[in-house]
């Protein structure tokens, strides 16, 4: 069986400055895969290239075995590839309920949407009492919950999560990681970008480490977690306590 997502020699630039210098990787269906790296390494850029909001210079991206390079970003969502961006990406000027509705924008089975909103509220009970509230008035943690609940509304097969724990209190971070595991248990493959390397390695099966536009290290998360020399050399003291 082919992997869910295959990337070959991906190059991406902003203007004349190349920030991804030929990335190759493979994501297997059903896993949580984490993508680590320091600030400015190119993690967000890589996710943007996968979801299609950034044009790539060269390389191949195959989703479920077929190339998606010529597929526009909105159509990638209906194929099951959903990107939950850095800074949540919710619509602050819309209510929580409307945000959830828009999560299902690309779906054809409109009748099932209400049922899925109910399921979303069971998974993210924090949203239940806030349905008519403007999303912009939610707390940071609530916004992250909404962003994930909305992403799930699209019935993703692959979910790209960009720093979901950014700026949240420890307790909320724990809760966010619980939800990530929950979503994964429901059969969604997750590519998780995180600064919080320790936790990310703990919940993921496989890990990639990106440094200034190159993948410098990859392997089972367990291996990375237990090898202190790897920790020191590649992940640095700052991100691994």
């Amino acid at each position: 069986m082919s992997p869910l997502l295959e990337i070959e020699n991906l190059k991406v630039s902003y203007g004349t400055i190349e920030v991804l210098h030929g990335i190759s990787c493979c994501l297997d269906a059903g896993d949580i895969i984490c993508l680590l790296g320091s600030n400015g390494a190119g993690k967000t850029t890589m996710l943007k290239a996968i979801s299609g909001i950034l044009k790539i210079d060269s390389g191949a991206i195959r989703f479920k075995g077929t190339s998606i390079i010529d597929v526009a970003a909105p159509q990638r969502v209906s194929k099951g590839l959903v990107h939950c961006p850095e800074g949540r990406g919710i619509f602050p000027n819309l209510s929580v309920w409307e945000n959830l509705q828009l999560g299902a924008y690309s779906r054809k089975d409109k009748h099932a949407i209400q049922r899925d909103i109910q399921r979303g509220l069971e998974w993210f009970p924090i949203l239940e009492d806030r349905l008519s509230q403007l999303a912009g008035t939610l707390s940071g943690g609530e916004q992250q919950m909404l962003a994930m609940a909305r992403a799930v509304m699209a019935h993703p097969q692959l979910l790209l999560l960009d720093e979901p724990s950014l700026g949240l209190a420890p307790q909320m971070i724990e809760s966010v990681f619980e939800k990530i595991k929950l979503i994964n248990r429901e059969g969604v493959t997750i590519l998780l970008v995180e600064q919080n390397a320790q936790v990310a390695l703990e919940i993921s099966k496989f890990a990639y480490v990106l440094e200034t536009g190159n993948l410098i290290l990859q392997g089972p998360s367990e291996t990375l977690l237990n090898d202190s020399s790897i920790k020191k050399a590649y992940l640095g003291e700052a991100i691994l306590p």
Partner: protein
Amino acid sequence: MQEFIQLVINGAALGSIYALIALGYTMVYGVLGLINFAHGDVLMVGAYAGLLAVWSIHLNAHPTLLGLLWVFVVAMVASSLLGVLIERFAYRPLRNGSKLNLLITSVGVSLLLENLCQILWGATPRVFPSILNQEIFFKVDHVAITNYLVVTFLVSVVLMIILEWIVLKTQLGRAMRAISYSHEMAMLVGISADNIIMITFMIGSALAAAAGILVVINYPQVDPTMGLLLGLKAFVAAVLGGIGSIRGAVVGALTMGILESLIAGYFSSTYRDALAFIVLILVLMIKPSGLFGHHQPEKV
């Protein structure tokens, strides 16, 4: 007092016409960040299309309700097609460039439309035949409600209710608001900006055409530059309400219409057109974001 009430009612009718036009400005601004200077000219083309519709069924001989509806439909369809064409061929190719380029292009489109119409129809105004018998519908004391006022209120209120429903209650409306927040975030939930922007132009242009027909029923002539002043006043109304805000456009337009009517009634109608400029200057000086303009803090 009677005179005052009459002037306010007449002004509200005028204001609801401005509102139909202002909604187009504000919606396009919402999804594209563009002041569409060609909007008034789309109205003008709609009025000409309405004229063709009148001729096509010889409506001027004896006005009927069905005929009136026909004129509205033809004008609105023609304008929305034009709006789509303008968006597709003039604005879309430039969307990723600077906003200034878009703005200048819209001025260019405006001039192009005016000159094309001048070539087609000549610069002299054409008489727009009467398609509605101007008579008094009912009267309370000395305050007269003509059937023109009734039609104006009916058409604008119905269209605004439909618009409100679309924007607030449908997936399309939610997508419009999502795009007005961010094209990129909207794409990430699967919204194609192209489609939504196109539909926005369709709706805005159709509303402008309806306004155009309401204008020419009362002031029965069409000419290639008729969209300029109307467009300008509606634009000021949208700025007064807070551009980008739908409710603001309606409130701003009603305010403008009533003020204009009062000025024309109590002072002189020569000052009525100056009002728009005075209001624009005052708004820009005192509260540039307008009555309903919002600067929402965004949480990250």
